[in-house]
């Protein structure tokens, strides 16, 4: 188990970050090339001022019609996504690892806060799970892929929380957590989680069309 743990926090962690970062760059660049090649009649209308104006509305809770009409999802998804970034980046357990291996360190969240935010993410995942099972319009369009990405995110946070609370065999749980986290990172460029990479661009594009051609707001 120790060997597996060492493998997971050592070479596999390198690999996961490399695949995540290089994969993301590759996906973004190749999508850009495809857009220039095949969507020239649409790329021509991209207007950053309009894109940014719209994105400001869309990153504001209840700042767009879709958010206002879906208040439950809005609250949960904002909490979920904020914690999704804040927790792993400012978690003492993570910073310690970077410090040990690379000598990098930065301020951490108090453990109690990080723990609470992690539990928020787990609960948010549970909410998404519930929606997928019981809200008819979500269930109708759910495919196996959606379960997979939700499971990757949910498992990473759940195992992290369990490891932190010393529930179950700690080494096993931590190893499992690290493996899940790595799988999730690797999945970002190549699954639906790529909405992280492309979401701002697809929104920005349609905002440009609405703003600069149709003179109408898109939020």
């Amino acid at each position, binding site marked *: 188990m120790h060997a597996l743990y060492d493998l997971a926090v050592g070479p596999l962690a390198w690999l996961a970050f490399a695949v995540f970062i290089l994969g993301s760059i590759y996906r973004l660049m190749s999508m850009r090339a495809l857009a220039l090649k095949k969507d020239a*009649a649409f790329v021509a209308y991209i207007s950053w001022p309009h894109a940014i104006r719209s994105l400001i509305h869309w990153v504001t809770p209840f700042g767009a019609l879709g958010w206002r009409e879906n208040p439950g999802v809005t609250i949960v998804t904002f909490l979920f996504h904020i914690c999704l970034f804040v927790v792993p980046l400012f978690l003492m357990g993570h910073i310690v690892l970077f410090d040990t291996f690379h000598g990098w360190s930065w301020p951490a969240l108090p453990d109690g806060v990080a723990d609470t935010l992690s539990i928020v993410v787990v609960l948010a995942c549970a909410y998404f799970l519930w929606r997928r099972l019981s809200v008819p319009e979500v269930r109708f369009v759910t495919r196996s892929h959606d379960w997979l990405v939700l499971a990757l995110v949910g498992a990473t946070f759940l195992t992290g929380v369990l490891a932190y609370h010393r529930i179950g065999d700690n080494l096993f749980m931590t190893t499992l957590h690290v493996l899940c986290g790595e799988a999730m990172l690797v999945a970002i460029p190549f699954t639906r989680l790529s909405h992280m990479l*492309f979401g701002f661009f697809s929104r920005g594009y349609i905002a440009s069309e609405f703003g600069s051609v149709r003179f109408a707001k898109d939020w």
Partner: protein
Amino acid sequence: MKTIADRLIEDEGLRRGVGRLTPEKIQKVFKELVAGECGARMKTYMETCVRCGMCAKACHYYMSHKDPSYTPVAKVSQTMWRLFDADGKVDPEVIYQCAQVAYTECNLCRRCIHYCPLGIDTGYIISVVRRLCHKLGVTPQYIQDTAHSHSATMNQMWVKDDEWPDTLQWQEEEAREEFPGLRIPLDVEGADFMYSVIAPEPKFRTQLIYQAAAIFHAAGVSWTMPATPGWDNSNMAMFTGDSEIMARVERAHYEAAQRLRVKRIVMGECGHAFRAVYDVANRWLGWKWHPVPVVHSVEFFWELIQQGRIKLTHKFAEPVTIHDPCNVIRGRGLMEKLREVVHFLCDNVVEMTPNREHNYCCCAGGGVINCGPPFKNVRIVGNSIKAEQLKATGVHWCIAPCHNCHGGLDDIISKFDLNMHTKFLGDLIYELMEKPE
């Protein structure tokens, strides 16, 4: 759960079309289409939709039927995802279903763009499904007939070359009884603007041409209409997925204006025609903007009012409400100008909610009403949300500067007994303006 397969409607065009297909043929055409015409937009939309269902509440079909298979994402799920999952190798029956969803259950109204956090343009995806169906020869009979008419005559209603000037002359004669000096100037080179209309106007709504001529006469503007093909600005080929014919129609329209050396084109009160001319066909032709500037009637009337060229004898006293047609509101941002015109004409305006960019579609647009009687019921029942919205205003007059909207709203009004009447801006201006002797 119910799907499109549980509500198939027989249509001769669709049935005949799928009869000629095999899975292999479908796959070949699908792959060519994806390789040839789809790019990063389609790829991103297909990949990133997180299936959150937030777009459900955007769509009047879902809001009226409350059936999960009518949400925007469900329409994509039952068409494009299915095709991509199978790499295009599907049973002909699947194409029948795709065609019914794409042609008759989505108005391409783009309301869902206000709901999807990722900005996924369902209207675009559905129009690509239509493009595929067109290439496979699976299109609803009625709308295909209008596309054939475009291709054979350059207008939507099989209006013959001599019927067009005849109709204008007839309207001119009628109008001269009321306004002795009135002309409908045909083919006048160098006029300030070319006025173009949709082919249903000369065919069965001639009073609209009469009214426009009367308004232009009273305003003292310099205008003309082309005597040659290119006078019809409508474009059903855009909605069948026949981009080639769409582009020919649009080229003829612009070329008529260029031949007449007018400063710009003023388009009658139609939404989809404006979308074709302003937003869609120009791109297919490779033009970023327009070789001749185009304005919609809403904007043109607004200008006339700003310039003081229209004077009223009185204002319309009864309360009215405003329907915002997607294609000139979400499509061109004319919501405030429309309101200024309406407030100039009417004393008492009751807004429906939601309004402006957030308005619900009339459920006729996007070619849906043009698919004809087989699909009429779904379209009307599929818009009870619009009926509720209209009813809540409590007024008897609804102003809608779009032909299709009139068709759609009139159907809803009679189905749900709303005791309402629809009006074009032109109807009201003509009725209320000071008429020259």
